[in-house]
């Protein structure tokens, strides 16, 4: 029995050691900061002032309003993850067949993950330009539709950010799904076919349930990362244009902290983001029983 316990410890301890060292201290620091008044003028001599930053966030009529940004962040997260997963899984299913040349397709489809985000996000931004962007040029030339003012209208700009982010994110889900599909034994499909099952029966009864244990962590973390992904929104909309209306929560935090040096305000906002994500993840995982084994 002792060997069993030490085996467990051997398995689990090293990872946790690193994690707590690297994350624990900043986490505590951030909590303390959120109850303080640290800003540009009080970098050395800040003090604890209670929950003032938090009340500021919820009660101040900010420009734009906190609740609007909050709502938009949710839309951002769910729409993105939805498309990432649907496209990723669909492509994985197709690639899992014995098709000729599938390794070529596999490689091409992974490129959006491989390319540095900065330049490709700005390239997408250029593609959304009203007069000279590739998207409008193709829409008007090949589909005979009127050009869309992507970046000048807040809703369109938001959609543009989503399109870019979906493009960037589906390869990741595709790779996960491909891996997950490998764990499904062939016999299950063969048995189902003998029973006369059509493809959608097989999909619903065999494939989807059995890739769940691997997909659930990916989807949960995908939601968390997308929620916190300020890069794309920042770059495609040029830091919130038009008029600071294309922000999501995190980009707003970033601006507060690094442009205005309101460190304590940004810390409080981060704690709120953390609380939201914690609730969201716990709810999602509870409904999918992710911490248990599949057998």
């Amino acid at each position, binding site marked *: 029995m002792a060997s069993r316990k030490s085996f467990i410890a*051997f*398995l689990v301890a*090293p990872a946790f050691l690193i*994690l707590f*060292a*690297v*994350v624990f*201290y*900043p986490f505590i620091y*951030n909590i303390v900061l959120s109850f303080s008044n640290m800003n540009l003028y009080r970098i050395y001599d800040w003090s604890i002032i209670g929950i003032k930053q938090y009340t500021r966030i919820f009660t101040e009529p900010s420009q734009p309003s906190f609740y609007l940004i909050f709502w938009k962040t949710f839309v951002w997260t769910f729409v993105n993850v939805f498309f990432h997963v649907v496209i990723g899984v669909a*492509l994985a299913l*197709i*690639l899992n*067949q014995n098709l000729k040349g599938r*390794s070529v*397709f596999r490689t*091409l*489809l992974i*490129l*959006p*993950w*491989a*390319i*540095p985000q900065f*330049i490709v996000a700005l*390239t*997408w931004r*250029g593609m959304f330009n009203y007069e*000279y962007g*590739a998207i409008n040029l193709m829409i008007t030339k090949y589909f005979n539709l009127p050009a869309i003012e992507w970046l000048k209208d807040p809703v369109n700009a938001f959609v543009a950010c989503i399109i870019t982010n979906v*493009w960037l994110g589906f*390869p990741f889900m595709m*790779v996960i799904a*491909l*891996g*997950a599909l*490998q*764990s499904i034994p062939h*016999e299950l499909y063969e048995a189902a076919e003998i029973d006369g099952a059509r493809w959608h029966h097989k999909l619903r009864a065999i494939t989807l349930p*059995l890739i769940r*244990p691997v*997909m659930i*962590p*990916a989807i*949960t*973390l995908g939601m*968390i990362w997308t929620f*916190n992904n*300020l890069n794309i929104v920042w770059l495609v909309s040029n830091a919130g244009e038009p008029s600071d209306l294309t922000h999501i929560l*995190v980009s707003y935090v970033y601006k507060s*902290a*690094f442009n205005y040096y309101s460190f304590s305000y940004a810390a409080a906002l*981060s704690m709120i983001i*953390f609380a939201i*994500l*914690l609730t969201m993840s716990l709810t999602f995982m509870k409904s999918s029983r*992710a*911490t248990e*084994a599949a*057998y």
Partner: protein
Amino acid sequence: MAIQQKRPRILQKTLSYFVLTLFSGIALFPIWQVVNISLRPGDKLLPTELELIPTNASLNNFIRLFTQTDFLTWIGNSLLVSLTVTITGVVLASTAGYGFSRFQFPGKRIGLLSLLTTQMFPATMLLLPMYIMLIKLGLINTYLGAIIVYSATALPFCIWTMKGFYDTIPPSLEEAARIDGCSHFAAFYRIILPLAAPALVITALFSFMTAWSEYIVAVQILQDSELWTLPLGLKSFEASMSTEWGLYGAASIIVMIPVVILFLALSRWLVSGLTLGSVKG
């Protein structure tokens, strides 16, 4: 009967190829734009026409990249850091994930959930305290500092993924091995691990990409330009209104190549087909 079965296959195949081609095209188009940036003279980020190859295209930027910048140094540094993170990631996640999958122990659920919580903070907020802490530990401006932080960043996802994959492998396999006299470790190493190859590939790819393309942490830790990884090097071509787009584009294309190589090398095990059907008794 036979003919009716054939037709769906052809339709399925055609549809499959169509979808794959469509999405490959969508994936490729912006990448091709970046290639164009690297071939265009004059640091022009945006084209003003839809053209396949830009006018006056030249490989000048690529030549300048290798001869006039420290690009090779950055590649070396990135490879060093990323490959180390990949190895640590695979080793630590494969063992930790196994522990979480197979064993019940006090604190298991909390442990798993706390892994997730580490991902929930906006990274920007952790920067200043992390910087202070790394200075105190003397890890600023070292490869080790970056490797440790990246491993910590990538591990939660990798552990969860490994655990999820192990969950799909029935414990009866290890029980059979133990009855035959194997130790815990041998059962894990020789039987279960090979079956989890696809998840190991995911872990490896993810760990690599975390270190390879990460900027925010790197810019805090790796100060000296000799230690710069690729994202830092690329950033040096940037200036808020006078970015050297030609060099940046060329570098971006080259940066993709090791990732693609790694993917090609590993994808054999990603679609291994090494499923349980072949092993079960």
